């Protein structure tokens, strides 16, 4: 099996950069990393073959600087650039600049990105291709007052969305006319800040729909296929928290139906590479929501169930190879993914920062960890709060769920608050166990339940806390008898050197 490229630049960081590196190492492709000054020691830098610092911690100073990244690609002799997700992944100007430099952009053509990247243009294209869309306006509204007029046509509740949007940024549910002003202001502000484009439009709000998305692959030789769907209905702040493949909601016939619609949607914009067509599913009908023209965070659940390496296919397709997967691939078994975010579910999922320590990672049958973490890693406010993903696969949904639950019980990430505990509670909820949930689950669940309150383990935790205090107090007591009262950083360094170096040179 020949490698599609000799050397690849990965214009990203964190777990997706490491994920791409892993496939590259397996295929014998050398990898070039770029990094900000904050990521000088990051795992994606250490695991690369070459690394180049391209600027300061803020994304605008480093990971968004397309020119610098192209310059590194030229200097290092990379033949192609994989953008990962986020940052420059859905930036058509960057994709064009890459191709114009004579390098290969590992992703879709810029034109497909442009159409799909604009909510309104994509709605129009989909309607023209006979792909059903959510009822709503097709033009941006000028201001909150104009939004209220459009909203009145469909009737409340409506969804306010950023025209340039993605990832839930700028999105607001508006239940009544009186909420429109505030929602428009914060939503448009968020969109302006995230995309440099504050334009908003209005859509009919589907009450508690399912978020179902279809993985597509398209090569440069005219073949477009789908690899089934993912159910991503468990979201917080309009961002996904738990994803699974296949969906427990739809039938085989519906899978076939929505898969064909997704292939039509991708083909309509001349898609190439891996991409995801997102649908809302409500009362038996699918509505096109958007297409993400990149590899997605939750791609591993599809990989586990279909037995394919999607990153490998992106690389092969970019190198011009033919997509030779068999027709009509069927899901085999089931996979569920939990995102591990540095955030506080008790505080409206606010991102948190800190230094990772006290890591305990699960293993055993059916468990996959995609992460780029290590003890001592700083979680900074500069980047996305996702630390990694925990994925379980099983012969059926029940086994996958039980394995994931077991793995979450083994997992510990210290030093920051994470979403892992909430994910465990959700996996154990009746609705999730039965596979009968929609995008309203998280909110219903949180209003019905005060977190881990009432857990039988809380009393045990209290005893452990008391024993820990006792233990620590005893150590301090002993320490007081003998310790040096000075606590300068130099003295600290000396102690550590003494502990590690085993007391100095010896032969």
């Amino acid at each position: 099996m020949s490698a599609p490229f000799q050397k690849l630049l990965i214009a990203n960081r964190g777990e997706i950069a490491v994920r791409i590196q892993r496939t590259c190492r397996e295929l014998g492709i050398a990898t070039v990393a770029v990094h900000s000054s904050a990521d000088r020691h990051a795992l994606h830098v250490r695991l690369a073959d070459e690394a180049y610092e391209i600027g300061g911690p803020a994304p605008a100073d480093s990971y968004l600087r397309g020119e610098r990244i192209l310059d590194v690609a030229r200097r290092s002799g990379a033949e192609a650039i994989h953008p990962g997700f986020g940052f420059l992944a859905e930036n058509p100007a960057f994709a064009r600049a890459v191709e114009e430099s004579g390098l290969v952009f590992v992703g879709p053509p810029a034109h497909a990105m442009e159409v799909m990247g604009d909510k309104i243009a994509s709605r129009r294209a989909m309607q023209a291709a006979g792909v059903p869309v959510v009822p709503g306006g097709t033009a941006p509204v000028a201001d909150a007052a104009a939004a209220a007029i459009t909203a009145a046509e469909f009737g409340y509740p409506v969804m306010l969305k950023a025209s340039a949007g993605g990832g839930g940024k700028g999105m607001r549910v508006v239940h009544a006319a009186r909420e429109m002003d505030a929602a428009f202001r914060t939503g448009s502000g968020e969109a302006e800040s995230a995309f440099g484009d504050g334009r908003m439009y209005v859509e009919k709000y589907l009450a508690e729909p399912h978020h179902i998305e279809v993985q597509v692959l398209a090569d440069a030789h005219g073949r477009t296929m789908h690899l089934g769907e993912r159910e991503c209905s468990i979201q917080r702040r309009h961002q996904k928290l738990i994803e699974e493949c296949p969906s427990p909601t739809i039938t085989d016939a519906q899978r076939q139906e929505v898969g064909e619609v997704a292939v039509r949607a991708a083909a309509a914009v001349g898609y190439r590479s891996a991409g995801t067509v997102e649908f809302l599913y409500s009362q038996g009908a699918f509505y096109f929501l958007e297409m993400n023209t990149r590899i997605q965070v939750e791609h591993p659940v599809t990989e586990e169930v279909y037995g394919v390496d999607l990153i490998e296919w992106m690389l092969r397709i970019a190198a011009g190879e033919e997509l030779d997967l068999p027709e009509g691939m069927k899901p085999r078994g089931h996979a569920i993914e939990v995102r591990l975010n540095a955030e506080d579910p008790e505080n409206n999922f606010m991102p948190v920062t800190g230094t990772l320590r006290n890591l305990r990672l699960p293993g055993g049958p059916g468990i996959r960890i995609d992460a780029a973490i290590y003890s001592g890693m700083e979680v900074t406010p500069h980047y996305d709060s996702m630390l990694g993903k925990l994925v379980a696969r099983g012969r059926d949904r029940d086994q996958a769920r039980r394995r994931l639950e077991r793995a979450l019980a083994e997992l510990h990430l210290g030093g920051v608050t994470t979403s892992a505990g909430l994910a465990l509670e959700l996996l154990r909820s009746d609705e999730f166990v039965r596979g009968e949930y929609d995008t309203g689950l998280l909110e219903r669940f949180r209003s019905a339940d005060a977190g881990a309150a009432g857990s039988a383990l809380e009393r045990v935790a209290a005893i452990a806390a008391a024993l820990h205090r006792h233990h620590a107090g005893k150590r301090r007591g002993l320490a007081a008898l003998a310790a040096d009262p000075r606590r300068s950083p130099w003295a600290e360094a000396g102690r550590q050197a003494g502990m590690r170096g085993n007391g100095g040179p010896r032969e």
Partner: protein
Amino acid sequence: MKYYLRSSHDRWEVEIQERADGEYRVVETGGEHEAHFADVDRQGQYLLRLGSRTYAVSIDEHDATHLMVTIAGESFQLRAFDERERAARKVAGGGRPRTEVVRASMPGVVVELRCAPGDNLAPGQAALVLEAMKMQNEIAATHGGVVREILIEAGQAVAAGQPLLRLDVPPADESPAG
């Protein structure tokens, strides 16, 4: 030695007698236990045995009295005091503060102020919107009360921990979490 533990909604008193190195007798409301407690890796992993029940315990210290204890994937935020600390707290007038300072939980930019001096904020009510990590985050008061002072302006960049506003907290019964 006796220790006083609190979560956001419950409290426990735990008495510990040390029998031998790592071996304890633990007395708490739920009963008495022979216990074994050991630091297994000096990184935060502990073994706790109560009678014959065993637990793999992860402990992360925010500071000496604020602990996050995780067992089998369930995390508990606890405060732990010894007798001396508890006495000191009692003298200081119990857990509930008279004023609350709302702080930035992380660096960011204040994009919207949702209150003015003199407003009465309910516990948990959003006081302002902070943009950080590309997300707009509502920042709320924990105890709530009357806004006495606003320390920042809309548009201003703030550091993690920076005080944003100061509230006068109305008197109330001591809450469990202190």
